[in-house]
Every structure is written in C-alpha cells, then in structure tokens.
C-alpha cells in the first residue's frame, strides 16, 4: 500500500503537463527496448541490441506479472476499498471511534483543507501497515542498525515508544552503498576537526557571504572525481534538481523525461516552464520517436522550432533497480543534438570499476554528458548534491542557480565528510580501501541477486544494480513481509502504490559494501523462509547458474518450465 513516499523512492510522480504519457504502459511494456518480441512472449530477456555500443553484457530482467497474481492483487485492493467505505460509514455515524485529528472548531466553516479521496487511502489502507515506515533508528545507519521499538494500541494511529531498542538489525534499507556511514575512522575524525573549527552552520548563501574555502575545495575535488571541467555543490540533493533545471531550460524548450524519473526531476522540469514529454522507461525507441517528432514538428501551435531539447535520465532507477541505457542515450543525443542531464543520485560511487558512476560503468567519456548531477547522501554518507560539466555551464549556474542565490550553503563538517570519503574512493588517501569497497559492493550485488533469483523470487532490474526490488504484488503481503523480516531482525523497505504501479508492490533491498558475506547469508536465509511463508516465489523461470564462467561475466541460461 502506501509507502511513505519516501526518498528517492517514489518514482511515480505526478505526470507533468502536456506529457505524451502512456497510461497503460505497465502491462507488457517493453522494458528492454531490445527484446520487444521476447518481452511480449513474457520472457526474461538478455539484451543486446546495439551490441556494438556496449562494452559489457547488459542484463536486465523484468519478469511479467503472473496473471493469477495480478487478478488476486486487484481483488485484494477491491476488498480493502470496500472495507474502507464500510469503516468510513461506521466512523461517520460514530459507531467506530475516530482517531484522526480534526479541524478546529473555529474553522469548521472554512473550505475543507483536504479533499476527501485524498485521505481515504491514507485512512483506510496506509494506516493498516503504517508501522513499516518511519521506523526510528538510534545508531549509525551501517550494516547493522539499532531500531527503537514502538507499539500502537490504536491500530497504528499513534505510536508509543516502549523504551526498548532492537539491537543489531541487519540494515537492508539505507543507501549506504560504499559503507561510508560510519562513526569511526578517517571521515569522522576529519569531520569532527572541521566541526570544531567551523561550527555547523553557514548562515548565508553562496553568492552573499557563505562561500567558504571548504566549498571551493570540495568543488575542485568533485570536478576531478567526475572528470569534468568544473562542478558546483548544493545543500540538498532534491533541491539540486528542482532548483537548477529551471536555470537551464525555460519556455520554448523541450524536456524529455523518463517516466520513472524522481519527483525532484519532475518538480524541476515543471518549475522551469518548459514543455515536458515523457518516454517509456529506459525505452530508446520511445525516446528516439519523441526526439524525431520534436525536431520535425517543432512546438505545437506556434510551429516554431524548439530552442533546445533536454533529456532527463537517471543512472540507477531506485524503484526498478534498472540502469540507464547510457550508450544508446548518448548516441541519440548526439544524433539529434539534444542535451543530456544525468541524475546519478544512486549510481555515483555505486557503479563502475572506479566508482565514477554509470559513465564509468559503461566506459564512456564524461564529456558526452552535458549535465552530470548526483548526490552526496548515498555513497558518500553525507548530504547535498552536485552538478558537474563544462566550465561555461558551471559559471552560468554560479550566477543563475536558485540555490546559489537564495539557499544556505553546505554545512562545513558535511563538506569534510564528502571530501574525505571521495578522496578515499579515488585512492588519494594512500589506501586501497575505496577500491576494495567498490569491489565488495559489486560482488555483494551479484551474489545477492543471484541467490534471490535461484530461490524463485521475481527480482527486477539490472544484475549490476545494488538496488534490488523483490516483487510482493499483493497489498497484504507488503505489511506482512516488512513485519516478518523485522521479527527476524532484518530491516527492509517495502513500497507500494503510489510509489509503484498499483499491482507492483515490492520490497527493496539496498546492498552495501559494509555487508559481509555472513550478514548477506543470514538475510538470504530469512528472506527464503519468509518467502515460503508468504508464498512470494512467483517466478516461473528456472535459472541455471553457469558456475564455470568467471565471476564478473556470469550469465544465466533460463529454461521455461
């Protein structure tokens, strides 16, 4: 059901104006443009259209929802809705106690602050399983985490903290890809030192008097890390998108946006005033058609040609676990002279042999991406975001970014955390720690994904993506899975509508370099058990691992039952 539309998780934002949208995309939508035919046949596909562009196998799977499961899921929502109406009826006649906060007496005659249906879902569906989100923690969000135990005596309308702490819960939820969320070690020490010297605040904006030497140091480092001419850092990842896209495009420009782009990209696009058109997720034919039509037909009504076209994509899509088909996107962008805005929120640090994100993963040239955007929240264990690119771009943003003019700059200890962790990844600290972390994460990812597939779960996404969605489908299983896993001392993230399409509720694991083999094995064992308990092993494909191949080239042959 309702996920806390948390984090970079709700990739199902409101469709923007004038989108060439695709209402019924999901069913049989061609996730891998390559194998349209294969997809239609409901098979997992191994891709390789445009094989020449890819230097490594690009294996992405989105197994089709089994028909029976889909039907049962709809029935489940139907039952929930019926009961919702029933209980609303009971509440209306005061037969059932009303728990939710109500309008003040003095303002009863104001126009209602909320629409009725808006709250129906929250009241009747989300509330039932609300305990699966916002679980408060009281330790470092590392491989294991301490969770504060809470209870509800009124069916999740309110929580009471028992004072107990559930210790050592295996953390499969935090975006701690490289394991830099730590309270010891070089990063913490460096941050502590800066904190003592600088304090935590800045109390001014970059353009006024909040541009510290630390910020300049960070930006130089980010630029060299990304392999671009210049970079600029911002205080919040979300705002990096929403406050900079409007500086780049405006009226008369066209934005082509992946349908599963994050809410921040959607908001930025909408605030820019440009026309927005949506292409199917990671579908290059859909993108090419939009590009071609845009150039050939120009702006609607005025018939003027578009001033410029900006393609918005993400490196790793945090709800699907898919990786953008960057080589093809770049080829298209070059062919049609569009500009490319790449959001590497989840992929920076987490992908590529040197942790430089999706560009590094495909072995491409960062110069081919016009705007390299990413966050420091995830792999670097800090907060904030950056944009990297050509010097002209960054100069322009320094003068025109909403963030630079109106928002407080990054806190100095946070900057120091980013600097230290980034240097570690680059090997500038004189150790191979960073490299080992990157390798560990890649191994963990392959191992964890392979084992889950072998168990018979439906797992979405690319085999190299550390974001691993496990399909649950039915609304009741969302709550059950989250609770059963916590009972077994494993913290997982579960999501449903509206973060996902209504029938595609899922659990999501985020792998980390901090996970040891032992932790992963424990987690896998429990997932296996809960999977049997809740009958989650929907996959109809039997996967046969080919063990004789070297590790990083492992592929699987599948046979239909």
């Amino acid at each position, binding site marked *: 059901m309702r996920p806390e539309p*948390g984090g970079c998780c709700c990739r199902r934002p409101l469709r923007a104006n004038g989108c060439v949208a695709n209402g019924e995309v999901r069913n049989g939508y061609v996730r891998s443009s390559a194998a349209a035919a294969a997809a239609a046949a409901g098979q997992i596909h191994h891709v390789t259209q445009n094989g020449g562009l890819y230097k490594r196998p690009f294996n992405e799977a989105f197994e089709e929802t089994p028909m029976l499961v889909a039907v049962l899921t709809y029935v489940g929502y139907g039952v929930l809705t019926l009961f919702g109406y029933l209980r609303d009826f009971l509440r209306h006649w005061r037969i059932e106690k009303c728990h939710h906060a109500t309008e003040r007496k003095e303002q009863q005659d104001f126009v209602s602050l909320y629409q009725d249906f808006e709250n129906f879902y929250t009241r009747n569906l989300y509330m039932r399983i609300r305990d699966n989100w916002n679980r408060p923690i009281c330790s470092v969000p*590392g491989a294991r985490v301490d969770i504060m135990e809470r209870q509800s005596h009124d069916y999740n309308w309110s929580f009471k903290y028992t004072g107990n702490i559930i210790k050592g819960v295996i953390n499969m939820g935090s975006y701690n890809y490289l394991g830099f969320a730590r309270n010891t070690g070089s990063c913490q020490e460096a941050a502590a030192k800066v904190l003592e010297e600088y304090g935590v605040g800045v109390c001014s904006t970059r353009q006024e008097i909040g541009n510290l030497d630390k910020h300049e140091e960070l930006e130089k480092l980010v630029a060299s890390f990304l392999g671009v001419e210049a970079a600029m850092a911002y205080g919040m990842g979300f705002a990096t998108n929403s406050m900079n896209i409007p500086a780049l495009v405006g009226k008369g420009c066209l934005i082509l946006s992946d349908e599963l782009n994050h809410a921040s990209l959607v908001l930025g696009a909408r605030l820019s005033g440009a026309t927005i058109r949506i292409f199917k997720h990671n579908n290059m034919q859909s993108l090419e058609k939009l590009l071609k039509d845009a150039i050939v037909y120009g702006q609607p009504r005025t018939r003027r040609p578009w001033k410029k076209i900006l393609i918005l994509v993400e490196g790793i899509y945090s709800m699907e676990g898919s990786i953008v088909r960057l080589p093809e996107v770049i080829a298209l962008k070059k062919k049609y002279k569009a500009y490319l805005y790449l959001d590497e929120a989840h992929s920076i640090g987490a992908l590529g042999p040197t942790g430089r994100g999706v560009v590094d993963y495909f072995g491409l040239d960062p110069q081919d991406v016009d705007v390299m955007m990413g966050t420091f929240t995830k792999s670097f264990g800090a*907060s904030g975001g950056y944009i990297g690119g050509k010097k002209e771009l960054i100069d322009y943003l320094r003068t025109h970014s*909403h963030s630079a003019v109106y928002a407080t700059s990054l806190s100095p200890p946070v900057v120091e955390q980013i600097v230290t962790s980034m240097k570690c990844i680059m090997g500038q600290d004189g150790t191979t720690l960073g490299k080992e972390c990157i390798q560990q994460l890649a191994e963990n990812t392959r191992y964890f994904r392979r084992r889950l597939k072998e168990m018979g779960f439906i797992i979405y996404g690319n085999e190299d993506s550390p974001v691993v969605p496990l399909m649950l489908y039915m609304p009741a299983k969302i709550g059950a899975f989250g609770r059963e896993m916590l009972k077994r001392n494993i913290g997982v993230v579960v999501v449903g509508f509206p973060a996902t399409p209504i029938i595609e509720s899922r659990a999501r694991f985020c792998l980390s370099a901090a996970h040891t083999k032992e932790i992963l094995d424990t987690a896998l064992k429990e997932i296996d058990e809960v999977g049997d308990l809740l009958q989650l092993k929907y996959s109809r494909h039997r996967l046969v691992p080919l063990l004789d191949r070297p590790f990083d080239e492992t592929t699987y042959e599948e046979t239909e039952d």
Partner: protein
Amino acid sequence: MATAAEQWVLVEMVQALYEAPAYHLILEGILILWIIRLLFSKTYKLQERSDLTLKEKEELIEEWQPEPLVPPVSKDHPALNYNVVSGPPSHNIVVNGKKCVNFASFNFLGLLDNARVKAAALASLKKYGVGTCGPRGFYGTFDVHLDLEDRLAKFMKTEEAIIYSYGFATIASAIPAYSKRGDIVFVDRAACFAIQKGLQASRSDIKWFRHNDVADLERLLREQEAEDLKNPRKARVTRRFIVVEGLYMNTGTVCPLPELVKLKYKYKARIFLEESLSFGVLGEHGRGVTEHFGISIDDIDLISANMENSLASVGGFCCGRSFVIDHQRLSGQGYCFSASLPPLLAAAAIEALNIMEENPGIFLVLKEKCERIHKALQGISGLKVVGEPLSPAFHLQLTDSTGSREEDVKLLQEIVNHCMNRGIALTQARYLEKEEKCLPPPSIRVVVTVEQTDEELERAARTLKEAARAVLL
C-alpha cells in the same frame, strides 16, 4: 388499386398542406433550405495534405540547430566571482583574505560559534556519523529528529512540528502540499523567492497584494467574495490562503498580523506565515511575530521557518496543529523525497534551542543593538535605511538611483568594498533579477547580531558613512 391508393395519399398530403399552420410551413421550408445548403456548401477546406517524406524529415533534423545549453556569462558578471571566506563565517570573519567584523551572515544570536552547540554536534557526530543515508520513511528517521520536532513544537507552543533538511525547501514544499490547482492564494508582493517557487509548484491562482497593504488585500478578498457568490458550487471547494512573511527578507518590515487575522476569519482564508527571519528574533522568547503581537498561535494555520538563521544550523521546520502539519509527512515533497537532516545538524539545533530558552534576555539585547545601528545609520547622504528599527536584517538603498540597475549595483559594490577594506564585512542582497516577481531595488543588506559590540556597531555606521561619502559624492 395501387394507383388509386397512391392518388389518395397524394390528395391527403395536399390537404394536410392546406391545414397545416403557417409557422409550421415556414419552419419546414427553412429546414429544407438548410439541408440544401449543407449538401452544396463545402464542409471542409480542401487542404493539400502533405506528409513529410522520410528524406524531408531527415533534412529537417539535419538543419535544426539548438541554442547552446547555457548562454555565455561575461567574466566580470557581478555574481560570478564569489567572496571566499577562509575559516568559520562567525563574528570575526576572513573574507578574501581580509579580517572583518561580520555584518553579513544571518547569525543573529551568535550561535554559529557557540561552544555548547559545537559540543552537542560533535557528540552526535561520534554517535551517528554524518549522513542519514535515507529519507525519513526508509530508516532515515533518527531519534534526534523526533527530539528536535518535539522540542520545536514545545518551544512554539504548537501541537506538532515537522523538519526539513533544507531551509529553502520548507515553505516551497509546504505550500503545494495544501494549495492545489484551482485554489486561491493571496500573497504579499514582497514575498521571498522560496514562497514564489512554492506558489509556482502549487499551480494555484495567485493574487498579489501590495506590500503590507491590508486594504489592498481586503479589496482582493472582497472581489473574490463577489466572484464566489456568482458560482457558489465552485466556491465551496476553493481553498483560500493568505501567505505572508513575519519579517520580510526583502524589505525588513513586519507584517500587520493582527489585521490579517481579522481578515482571515472574516473571509475564511487560512494564513501561512513564513518566519525565517522573525523566528528567534521577535517576541519576548523569540517565538516570532505571533508572540510579538500577542496573537494566539492557533490562529495561524501554518508557520514555517528555517533553522539557518537564528539557530545557526541547517534545515527548516513547519509547525502548527497536527491536523495541518501531519499531512506533510505524506505530501511534503521536500520531506518525503529527500534524505533526512544529518543528525549532527539536528543536535546542533536542539542545543541552540536550549540556549534560547535559557537566555530569553538575548532577544532584548538583539533588539537594542538593532535600534542602535538603525539610529546611527540615519541621515547618510545618498543612502536610505529600508526596514524597521527592530529588524536585525535591513537594507541600505540609494536615495537617488542612477537610473540603471547595473550602475546602482556597481556603486553599492564600491561601498561594500570600501567597508570590507576597513574591516566591516557586508554584502549586497542578491536576487535573480529575471525570476523575481517584484524585484526589489539593489541594496546593501546589514545584519545585526548579538555578538557585535556597541563600539563595533558605531564603527560600522561610521565606516558606511565614510564609504557613502567617498563613493557617492
């Protein structure tokens, strides 16, 4: 037989024709004419349908030249080369290598450099590390966040508070969480940029009223009331909001809250109050503009403020009744979709709140200092003070504009540089000139903090006077 019957029918028809009333005949006549017209007129314009051939399309694609991604920025753009601050941006600040007294950072209560705040942040850093690695929903809620929300709610004497990880995103997310397409928002023209962006994201109808002009607001409200009477069905579902700032960032003036509250009940519009400057400044305990006017905080539907000024941390918060605030936990975009506030910043904010609660006298000190420098800056030839005497951030504008904004900015920058060379750090208020709804005239923003001694205040005023004389005369 057949012919006889046919004849009979014909006779009957003719007879019917005679008996029919005249209007009927005329009507039928017109209809017949109409049908004839339809049959013979052109129903559509014949256009030469011309689908582009593949080759033509390719040519078009080949021809199209986009504008560059960004226009070039000239090397001497006034905003391109930032001041570089080495070391902490506290009371004594080193800007571009020059030691200065800070009159530019919004560090009103001097908490940025406070040892207790640093110690609290450090303790938090040692327990939690730096980042949260997740949004609030997914294991990004720390006990510190819950504490801070609790403390803020208690401090402001409201039911609930919600924290955001970025000051700008707070009001910019809060407004679209409530105000949707079709709703009406009445906004002061001097509203800050974050409010403008929130309004834009909400896609509501925006009605701008003149700055702090209650009569103008009432006029708009009355107009809307008249409009509502015409279409009561629509009015029943159209929410109305009044969005104002407590202490205006762009003008340094206080909003006339008591009158606004009266209008709120009269016209049934909810009030959203942005208090980034007034929180921790106005009122006996620093609760902001509601305390300043002695207005019950329950009369305000939502208060939003950032923790980046008085509290000298990072982030923002909204507070109010649970009925209102709780909604943002699922609908506040900047809350749901962003990583949560680093715990060390939350811990610093908690400690700053402690200090505020322990020393309520601090607000009086700040007020006195504001009044002192305000007085001292009166009567500078060429510069006028814009803002109220109790505002710790106010503007110095040119009394006589040169007529071009660019020139004005240059002049003011010379004054700023002059002061900077003499140990007073100041800055111009920066705006995105093309994006602002009502662009304020260029100005130097002076910020008063409790750390500035009387001597330093006098010195700043003196230096500004000298600078104005040197540059403007």
